[in-house]
């Protein structure tokens, strides 16, 4: 497990997103990867891509993803320690909240989701307690 986390952390540092990530964003991604690493042990394949930036409490951010029915997904959010509590919520293409398996531990959170229809979905991420923080969202599938 340690070896896997080390590999994932190195991958986080070596990865090259389309814009340069700040140190805080790299740290947020490392946190997300620690959780996603556990899902990888369970057969989930980690996507190399990520969505990083800054979040403030009360100002959630939303991203569209395109998912396939039959697959299972984990959306994992890592934030720097200024965020004391974060959340991940999944919505369908009409904006209806979806039932998910939630996981939360201070500045990391994840939502497990198995869509029954293929198509666009929206992932809402938010800092529910704490100061503005850098975040990074990643996802895994199987």
């Amino acid at each position: 497990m340690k070896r896997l986390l080390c590999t994932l952390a190195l991958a986080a540092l070596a990865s090259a997103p389309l814009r340069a990530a700040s140190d805080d964003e790299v740290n947020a991604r490392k946190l997300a990867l620690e959780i996603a690493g556990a899902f990888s042990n369970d057969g989930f394949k980690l996507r190399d891509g990520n969505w990083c930036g800054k979040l403030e409490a009360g100002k959630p951010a939303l991203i569209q993803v395109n998912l396939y029915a039959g697959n299972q997904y984990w959306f994992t959010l890592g934030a720097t320690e200024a965020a004391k509590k974060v959340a991940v919520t999944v919505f369908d293409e009409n904006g209806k909240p979806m039932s998910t398996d939630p996981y939360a531990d201070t500045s990391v959170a994840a939502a497990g989701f198995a869509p029954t229809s293929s198509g666009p979905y929206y992932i809402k991420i938010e800092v529910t307690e704490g100061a503005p923080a850098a975040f990074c969202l990643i996802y895994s599938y199987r």
Partner: protein
Amino acid sequence: MIPTFRILASGLAAVCLCASAAGEATPLTPEEIAGAARTDELSIPMPGEFMATLNKLGKIDWTKMFRAPIATNYTSRPQMALNLGGLIADGYVAIEAEDSPQIKNIGKDILALAKTLGVSKDVIERGASIANFASQSQWDQLREEMEATQNEVKAGMAERKDSDLVTLVTVGGWLRATEVMSGYLTKNYTEPGAKLLRQPGIVAFLNKRLDKLSEKAQADPSVVVVRKKMGEIEKFIAFPPDKAPSAGDVKQLNTLAIEVVKEIIKKQTK
């Protein structure tokens, strides 16, 4: 829904496993939906995700989806970028087929095109890793490596302020993956399988990106064909979630995808 998670989560310290979030969240407004971010890196699924769901429908002989090697010495940069994306999609097919020699050959072709596009130094090490993982039959690592290669190629293009090429790599990969998937579903039609082709969000996203290409890129013959065909393709993958496209619709989609990929790989005459 994903029972193993509860076992897994129990091993993590200080975990808060709450009730499902669905009941607590407020629905999104149309304005929130319209303002959602859409990025190349997360909003566009990788071919591996489609293949993962297709694999659940039954045992698939992925070697049947291989195509003959394509040229790597095009003169048009937009065409090279489209083909680079297509080769990455081919890489995923070869990984699903667990065919090491094919993966290595595709890896070499990816490097050759990346070199001509001036981004090879960003991916040379990835090429070596692809060959090593293929030799050792490390398929999961190969999937990650293939996506990382694509991301690094795009990052190299972005650094060189070549956002047109970034878009075209994405579009080329998506079109080749659509050709492969619709080809499989044409020959093995089922309603649940056909429903997987539903991707209205992706086509809308890619079409917006294509509309933002520079005039020079938009004038490239391969891009002209792609933009025209994307409009036609959209009709076949933007169906309602509860309705499966007919076998005829899937075949038409496949025909469109074959035509556009054929144009992408065809060498342009001056």
